[in-house]
C-alpha cells in the first residue's frame, strides 16, 4: 500500500506550521513518514500539548499539603481527604464533537472524563457538567414563530442533555450538579464541559507510566475503528462548516455499558497488584497513551498493530494510531502476572490483546505487518512540543463596554414584572428539565441533590475500590464532599481579569453556603482562537484572575482542560473559564441548603447590600440589563477577594456554631432573585414543592436605584435564615468576624413581599414558582 508523500500541503493539512515541521526534522534527523506525521500532528495539537497555553498554566497555584498528585503529573490530580482516603477529579470539554453530533458528542465527553478518573485507580462517584448554548427562547420583541437558530439551539440542548443522561445513567454515576447558560455567542458552538470525581485510598493511586523493561503491554476494550480519527486535531482548529463536515464521517459513538465493564475490570485488576501502569486511550488514542506512558517512565514502548483488535479489515497504521474509538485502555502488566489479567478481563467478557512490551530504548516503536511504521523518541514527542508566547492586545470592544453608563438607563419604578421575567429567563430559571433526566442518586451517596448552591455527596467506606480478600475497611466517619461549577462568562467578556476572579469566588461562595471548605479546583478554559491577539489577551488576563483567586481561597488547581478555537462565523464565544471547585464538609450537621426551612425565621443578608465603589452598582453585565434593556455592557461587579474570603470564613463559623438554617449566595439576578429562590427552590417530591414566603424590608438601604438594589449583582453577598431568637446574636457575631450583616425580615406566608424606600410590592409565590420551574420545559416542548 502506498502512503501519501509528505508535502508542505500535507504538513499544513495536519495543522503543523513550517517551523514545527522543521523542528520535527531536527528531532528525527530525517523525514517522518505519513503515520509519523499523523502522530506528531495529534501530539503537538493544542489539545494534547497545550503549546499556546503552557506558559500561562504554569502560573496557577498547584501546591498544598493535601495534594498527593499535582497538576500535569498524571491524568487527574489527587487530594487527600483524611483517614488515608483521597479524591481524584477533573473537568474536560467536548465542545466541537457536541456541535457536530450533540447526543454522542456529549455522551463520549462524559465517558472520557470517567476514564480519566478510574485510570488513576479511583472509583468514579459523581459527575457534574457545565453547558452553554445559544438562546432557546425568542426575544419578546419578535414573537412570531421560532427562528431556525432557536430551533437548532433547542436541538443541541436536548441532544447534549440526552447524551449526558444516557452515558452517566447507564454507567451508574450520579450527575449531581452543573450549570446551564444561554447566550447568542454560543450559537453553533455550544460548550459541553464534563467533570468527574472519584475516590480511592492513598495506596491505590495508579500511575500512567510504562515502567519495567520487558513488561507486557495489554490493550483492553472494544476493537479500534475509524471513528473520531484525529479528534484532538479537530478540537484544535476553528469550528467551520468544512471541519465539521469532515468530522461527521467519523463520529464517535459511546458505549456506556462497555465503559462500566472496563471500569469494574480495571479496578478489580489494580487491586491484584499485577498492574505496573495504566492509561486510557482518550484524545489521540493509541498514540497518546503509548508515548505518554513511555515518556513518564523514561522507558520506551514497542507495539504491534496486527495484534490490536480492529473493527474492520484494511485499517492503515495511520488510522489505527489516530483512532479515538471509545472505552479503550492501555495496561502495562508486571511480567509473569499475565494470567491474572486475562482471567479478570475474561470474567467481564472484555476483548483484550497483548500488543507489545516496554523497552529501554526511549523510543515509541510501532510495527505493522512485520515492518516498523513508527520509530520516534517518546519523550520528545510527548514533552517537546513547541511552546508559543502569543501576542496579546487589549480587545477593541472593551473601550465601548467600559464607556457604558447607568445614566443612560432609566430606573425602575415597579419591579414586579422584571422579577417575573428574570425568573423565567432560561439562564436563571430552574434547570429541573435538565437534571431530572440525570440519575442523580445512584450509589446511595447524594446528600444534596441538584437545586442548591453546591451538591454534596457522602463517601462511605464501600465507595472506595476493593482490596482483594479484604472486606471494605470501616471508616471512622463518612466523608462529605461538596462540588460547585461556575462561570458567568458575561463578566469575563466585559473584564477578563475581574470576571475570572468572580468565577472562582462564586464557586468558593457556593461551597461555603453548603458548609464546605475548598480543597482544590479544576478549570476548563473555553476560548476562541489564540492566534488572535485580542483573544489571547482574554486568555492571559483570565488566567491571571483565576490564579490570584485560587491562591486566596487556598483552592489550588489540580488539573484542567483547555478548549480553544471556539468560534463560529460570527466570531469567538465569550471567554468562558469554567471553574469546578471541590470542598469538604467536616460534619454532617454542617451541611446547609439554600431554601428557607420554616415560617418565622429571620432573614439576614451577610455582606454589604451594594458595592458603593462600583459605578455600575452591580448592574454591569447583569442579567437585569440583558433581560430588561437588551444590553450586555458595562463593567462587571468588582471582586474584592480578601473581603470575599472573610465572608466565607464568617459564614462557615456561623454554620459551625449551628445558627444557620439556610444559606444562598446572591448571583445572577441579584438580591430579589436570590430571595425568590430561597422561598421556593425546595422540591420535596415530584410535583410537590415547599413554598415558604418572605417579607423583607430594604428601606434602610437608602439612596440607591431600585433596579440596583433588587437586581444588582454586587459580589460578596449571602442570604441566610436563622431562628428569629438568634437574629441579633448572629448579626453581632458576623460583625465581630468582620462582615456586615443586616436583618431583612422574616419568613412565612404564601407571598414574597419586598418593601423599599420607594414602595412596597408583593408577588404570589405559586405564580413565581410556576414561571421559574417550567420555563425551560415550556421552551423545549415546542
Amino acid at each position, binding site marked *: 500500500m502506498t502512503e501519501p508523500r509528505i508535502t508542505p500541503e500535507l504538513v499544513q493539512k495536519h495543522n503543523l506550521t513550517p517551523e514545527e515541521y522543521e523542528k520535527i526534522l531536527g528531532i528525527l534527523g530525517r523525514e517522518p513518514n505519513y503515520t509519523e506525521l499523523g502522530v506528531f500532528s495529534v501530539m503537538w495539537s493544542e489539545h494534547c500539548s497545550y503549546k499556546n497555553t503552557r506558559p500561562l498554566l504554569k502560573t496557577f497555584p498547584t501546591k498544598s499539603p493535601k495534594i498527593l498528585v499535582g497538576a500535569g503529573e498524571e491524568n487527574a490530580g489527587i487530594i487527600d481527604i483524611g483517614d488515608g482516603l483521597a479524591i481524584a477529579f477533573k473537568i474536560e470539554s467536548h465542545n466541537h464533537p457536541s456541535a457536530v453530533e450533540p447526543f454522542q458528542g456529549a455522551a463520549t465527553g462524559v465517558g472520557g472524563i470517567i476514564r480519566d478518573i478510574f485510570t488513576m485507580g479511583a472509583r468514579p462517584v459523581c459527575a457534574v457538567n457545565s453547558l452553554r448554548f445559544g438562546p432557546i427562547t425568542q426575544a419578546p420583541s419578535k414573537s412570531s414563530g421560532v427562528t431556525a437558530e432557536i430551533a437548532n439551539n433547542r436541538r443541541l440542548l436536548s441532544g447534549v442533555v440526552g447524551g449526558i443522561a444516557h452515558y452517566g*445513567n447507564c454507567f451508574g454515576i450520579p450527575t449531581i450538579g452543573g450549570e446551564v447558560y444561554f447566550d447568542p455567542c454560543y450559537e453553533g458552538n455550544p460548550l459541553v464541559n464534563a467533570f468527574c470525581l472519584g475516590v480511592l485510598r492513598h495506596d491505590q493511586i495508579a500511575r500512567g507510566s510504562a515502567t519495567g523493561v520487558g513488561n507486557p503491554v495489554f490493550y483492553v476494550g472494544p476493537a479500534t475503528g475509524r471513528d473520531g480519527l484525529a479528534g484532538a486535531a479537530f478540537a484544535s482548529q476553528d469550528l467551520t462548516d468544512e471541519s465539521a463536515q469532515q468530522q461527521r464521517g467519523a463520529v464517535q459513538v459511546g458505549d456506556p455499558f462497555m465503559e462500566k465493564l472496563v471500569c469494574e475490570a480495571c479496578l478489580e485488576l489494580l487491586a491484584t497488584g499485577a498492574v505496573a501502569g495504566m492509561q486510557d486511550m482518550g484524545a489521540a488514542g493509541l498514540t497518546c497513551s503509548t508515548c505518554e506512558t513511555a515518556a513518564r517512565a523514561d522507558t520506551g514502548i514497542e507495539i504491534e498493530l496486527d495484534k490490536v483488535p480492529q473493527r474492520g479489515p484494511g485499517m492503515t497504521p495511520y488510522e489505527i494510531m489516530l483512532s479515538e474509538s471509545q472505552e479503550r485502555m492501555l495496561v502495562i502488566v508486571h511480567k509473569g502476572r499475565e494470567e491474572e489479567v486475562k482471567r479478570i478481563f475474561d470474567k467481564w467478557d472484555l476483548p483484550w490483546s497483548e500488543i507489545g512490551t516496554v523497552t529501554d530504548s526511549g523510543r515509541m516503536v510501532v510495527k505493522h505487518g512485520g515492518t516498523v511504521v513508527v520509530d520516534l523518541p517518546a519523550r520528545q514527542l510527548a514533552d517537546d512540543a513547541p511552546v508559543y508566547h502569543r501576542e496579546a492586545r487589549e480587545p477593541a470592544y472593551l473601550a465601548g463596554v467600559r464607556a457604558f453608563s447607568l445614566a443612560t438607563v432609566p430606573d425602575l419604578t415597579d419591579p414586579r414584572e422584571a422579577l417575573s421575567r428574570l425568573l423565567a429567563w432560561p439562564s436563571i430559571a430552574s434547570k429541573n428539565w435538565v437534571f*431530572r433526566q440525570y440519575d442523580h442518586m445512584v450509589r446511595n451517596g447524594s446528600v444534596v441533590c441538584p437545586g442548591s448552591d453546591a451538591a454534596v455527596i457522602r463517601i*462511605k467506606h464501600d465507595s472506595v475500590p476493593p482490596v482483594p480478600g479484604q472486606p471494605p475497611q470501616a471508616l471512622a466517619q463518612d466523608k462529605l464532599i461538596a462540588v460547585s461549577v461556575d462561570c458567568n462568562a458575561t463578566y469575563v467578556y466585559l473584564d477578563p481579569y475581574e470576571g475570572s476572579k468572580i468565577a472562582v469566588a462564586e464557586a468558593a461562595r457556593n461551597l461555603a453556603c453548603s458548609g464546605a471548605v475548598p480543597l482544590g479546583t479544576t478549570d476548563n478554559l473555553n476560548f476562541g482562537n489564540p492566534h488572535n491577539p485580542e483573544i489571547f489577551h482574554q486568555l492571559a488576563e483570565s488566567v491571571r484572575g483565576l490564579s490570584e483567586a485560587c491562591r486566596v481561597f487556598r483552592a489550588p488547581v489540580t488539573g484542567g482542560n483547555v478548549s480553544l478555537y471556539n468560534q463560529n462565523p460570527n466570531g469567538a464565544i465569550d471567554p468562558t473559564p469554567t471553574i469546578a471547585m471541590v470542598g469538604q464538609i467536616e460534619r454532617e450537621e454542617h451541611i446547609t441548603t439554600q431554601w428557607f426551612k420554616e415560617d418565622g425565621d429571620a432573614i439576614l443578608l451577610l455582606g454589604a447590600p451594594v458595592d458603593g465603589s462600583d459605578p455600575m452598582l452591580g448592574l454591569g453585565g447583569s442579567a437585569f440589563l440583558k433581560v430588561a434593556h437588551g444590553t450586555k455592557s458595562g463593567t462587571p461587579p468588582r471582586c474584592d477577594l480578601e473581603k470575599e474570603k472573610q465572608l466565607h470564613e464568617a459564614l462557615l463559623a456561623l454554620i459551625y456554631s449551628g445558627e444557620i438554617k439556610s444559606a444562598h449566595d446572591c448571583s445572577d439576578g441579584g438580591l430579589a432573585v436570590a430571595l425568590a429562590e430561597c422561598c421556593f427552590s425546595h*422540591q420535596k417530591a415530584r410535583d410537590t414543592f415547599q413554598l415558604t414566603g418572605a417579607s423583607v424590608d430594604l428601606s434602610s438601604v437608602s439612596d440607591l436605584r431600585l433596579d440596583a438594589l433588587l437586581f444588582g449583582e454586587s459580589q460578596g453577598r449571602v442570604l441566610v435564615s436563622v431562628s428569629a431568637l438568634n437574629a441579633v446574636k448572629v448579626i453581632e457575631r458576623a460583625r465581630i468576624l468582620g462582615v456586615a450583616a443586616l436583618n431583612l425580615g422574616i419568613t412565612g406566608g404564601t407571598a414574597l413581599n419586598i418593601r423599599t424606600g420607594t414602595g412596597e410590592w408583593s408577588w404570589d409565590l405559586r405564580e413565581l414558582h410556576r414561571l421559574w420551574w417550567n420555563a425551560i420545559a415550556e421552551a423545549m416542548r415546542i
Partner: protein
Amino acid sequence: MNFAILQFPASNCDQDAVHVVRHVLGHSAQMIWHKESSLGEPDAVIVPGGFSYGDYLRTGAIAQFSPVMQALRGYAEAGGLVLGICNGFQILCEAGLLPGALIRNRSLQFRCEQVFLKTISRDSPFTCKVPADKTLKIPVAHGDGCYYADAPTIARMEEKQQILWRYSTEQGEVSGMASPNGSVGNIAGVCNESRNVAGLMPHPERASEAILGSEDGRLLFESMIDWLQRRKPACATP
C-alpha cells in the same frame, strides 16, 4: 437473614443494595455473579437496579438468559422471596416471573425524582410492615418504567391483589400527575400470584437512611425480614 444480590454486567445499584442490607439493616448480603449457576442458600434474593447489558434491545431482555436466572427460577418456584428493583423488576417481567412489561416512559425521557407511593395490598412479604395509610416517599430513576399489561391480566391481578404499589400524591391520591412514567393504573410495583416474587420501579434502597432524605424504603426490607422471621421456624428452607 442472608440476602443474595444478583450482579449482571452493568448492574449499578448492586452495591447500594448490599450497603443497605449490611450496614443499614445489619443483615448479611452476598453478591452473586450472573455466571453462577447456584444461588447458595439465601433467605431472600434481590435483583438490583442498573442497566444490565446496557439496556440494549429492551431493558432486562438479555439478562434473562444469564445462568443465574435458571437458579432464580427454581428458587422462586420453591417459594423463595425475590425482590426486583427497577432494572431488576424489568428483568423479572422479561423472564416471566412477574406479569406485564415495562415500556418507555410516556415523556420519552429518563426521570429521576422522589415520588410518593400508596401501598395497595399490605398482604405480602414485601408490604406487611407498611403502616396503613402511610404514603411512602421513595425515588425513581428510569427511562422505561411505564408498566403495561393487557386489560384481562390487570383485572386478574386486581382480583388476586397482586398490585402492591401505585404512584400517588403525598396524601395518597392516585392521580395521573403523580406518575412519573404513565403506567397503566399508576402501577409502581406488583407481585406474582403466589406473592413471593415482587418488583417495583422505585428504589427503596435509596430511601433507607435519613441523610438521603427518606427512610420509607426500609419498610419494604423490614417487611421481608419480618415475614422471613415469622416463617422461618415453620419452613427452614423455602
